[in-house]
């Protein structure tokens, strides 16, 4: 069994597998503090797929550098999961439906959520930007994040709040400015392709800080 960290099959074939019905470690599921990394976007639509590619690159890098165990998905997962030291990181890539993010962040074990996405923020293509959810809400960031039929992620999270689902975990967005001319195809624009590494490294630094904070909190609890 292997996990292929690529959203589309390579020339040699192969597919990411997530087997529903696998018992996994259900008993420890709720105790394991989970950090979500969500890569938004469509990998067939040029720069729109930058978030998905960044998510997969980060998953691959994290698995390689941390030496954490790679788990198979448990039916709800949209990508690989890694875990180590009582903290789990769940990577959800290629998400186009913001309701899927709402459902993912509502899981009781989820402590924080890092969203990676291509954005329209008035920057130069390939530049990265970081927002806390509350900053986006203040600016009415509609249209910045993944949208399905015009209902975007911020609206969906607000809907969840209004529907009594609570505010969910702390959410941080790392965005990369898309090139407006790169709308189609399986390749990123040169600028975004170059900027992707910065995005992945910045997200990795933040994720590492989160892991340290969760472990420290866990040690204090113990």
């Amino acid at each position, binding site marked *: 069994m292997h996990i292929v960290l690529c*959203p*589309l*099959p390579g020339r040699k*074939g192969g*597919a*990411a*597998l*997530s*087997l*529903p*019905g696998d018992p996994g470690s259900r008993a420890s599921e709720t105790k394991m503090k989970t950090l979500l990394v969500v890569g938004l976007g*469509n*990998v*067939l*639509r040029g720069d729109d797929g930058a978030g998905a590619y960044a998510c997969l690159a980060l998953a691959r890098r994290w698995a390689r550098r941390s030496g954490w165990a790679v788990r198979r*998905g448990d*039916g*709800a*997962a*949209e990508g690989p999961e890694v875990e180590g030291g009582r903290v789990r990181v769940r990577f959800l890539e*290629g*998400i*186009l*439906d913001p*309701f*899927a993010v*709402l*459902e993912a962040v509502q899981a009781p074990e989820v402590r924080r959520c890092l969203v990676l996405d291509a954005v329209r923020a008035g920057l130069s293509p390939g530049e990265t930007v970081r927002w806390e959810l509350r900053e986006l809400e203040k600016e009415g960031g509609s249209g910045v994040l993944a949208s*399905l*039929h*015009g*209902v975007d992620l911020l*609206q969906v999270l*607000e*809907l*969840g709040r*209004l*529907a*009594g*689902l609570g505010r969910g975990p702390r959410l941080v967005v790392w965005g990369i400015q898309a090139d407006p001319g790169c*709308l*189609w*195809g*399986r390749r990123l624009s040169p600028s975004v392709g170059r900027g992707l590494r910065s995005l992945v490294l910045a997200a990795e630094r933040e994720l590492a800080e989160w892991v340290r904070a969760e472990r420290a909190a866990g040690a204090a609890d113990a």
Partner: protein
Amino acid sequence: MSMGMSSETGVRIETGAGTGARQVTVDYLARVEGEGKLAISIQGRKLESLVLDIFEPPRFFQGFLVGRRYNEVHEIVSRICGICPVSHQITALQAIESALGVAVSEETRLLRRLLAVAQTFQSHVLHVYMLALPDYLGFPSVLEMAREESLRPAVERALRLKKLANNLTALVGGRAVHPVTAVVGGFTAVPGRAEVAQALARLEQVEDDIWKTLRLVAGLQLPRVERADAEQVALVHPQEYPVNEGELHSTRGAAATAATYRTVIEERQVPHSFALYSMVRGRGPFLVGPLARVNLNFAHLTPEVRQAAEELGWEFPDENPFASIRARALEIYYCWQECIRLLRWYQQRLGELPAGVTTMRERVRPRPVNVRAGQGAALTEAPRGLLYHSYRLGRDGRVEEADIVSPTAHNVANIQRDLEVFVADLLEKDEELTDEEIALKSEMLVRSYDPCISCSVHFLDVKVERH
């Protein structure tokens, strides 16, 4: 010309001084996936011209597929759309299997049906509650609607039902958004007993939500579009409500199989749009989607669903495109029942397995494929209507040619025709109607089709020169 514009709605209104000429332009069609523009020119109380302009660039999905192996296609096409990945996946699998002469087991067929009805369930819930309801209740968006205390339970219901349906997709497909378990010839993994029992229990708890959805839709006042030349197209199956199988039929007698689809449906270019306009050969545009399905297959809905339609006073066939929301509500009921039926069937089959065998994996395991050159096509019913995939494979099993026509690509010409009739009728019947109201009602009509413009693959980069 004087001009006014609302930045919130993207509606521009231009008025010709003293000429009685007006132009209403909806620059951005809210709550429609992708982007589109609608320009309406009015002279006095007469509609002068109406152009639904799709300015989304062309999609190159078909090009992506050329050169890919037969067993990669379904994974790539599932990425076309965030709402209907299952439909593209299953249609591609069936077309490829047709090209390679692969037969699947009954278990595979029914698990694919379960995947598809779960997807239609969640797509219809999204449309009814999040996209259509704000129009009918007078809110600019679902968020504004949710801020209204009395409507909060409806939003909670929508989120509950959507989550339930997404979980079903994840149960069978392995992932809720881009399922991964369905492959050429079968499934790589199957749900376990405990998960199925849990899913069934959750489904059985929401009957009240389903009925509340039906009653909510029954309370809506629907506008009407009357067209003498209306034609509706859907799959028809002799034994069941069509999902992944059946033959194409129309309300005006057109008929085709997947193999003969191109002899019945043609595509034409129009100067004002990137979209190719689908037509029934020798006639004109047609409607696909839940309304066409219900109209052509009412007898194959369950007795309970037909009874619900009768109790609510809904008569089918109904050619009014605004009645699509009623068809969607009925299909939510149908899909809910069908998910329960299929999960119970699955439980029963698990119970019949020989001693020592604990999963259905053997029944759905993909069989060896004899790779060869071939051509195959498939037609399915996606949530938004008829979906067509066709592939020509070379001797090495790689795609040489792909042809995909999505439900929205089928519907675009009909939306344009409906709008022309609807707006002309509005102008004739109500001289007090403001331009903002015309724009809103036109948008409602477009939204009633639930178009997914960004996944309409038959969009061409057309340059038009005018002299």
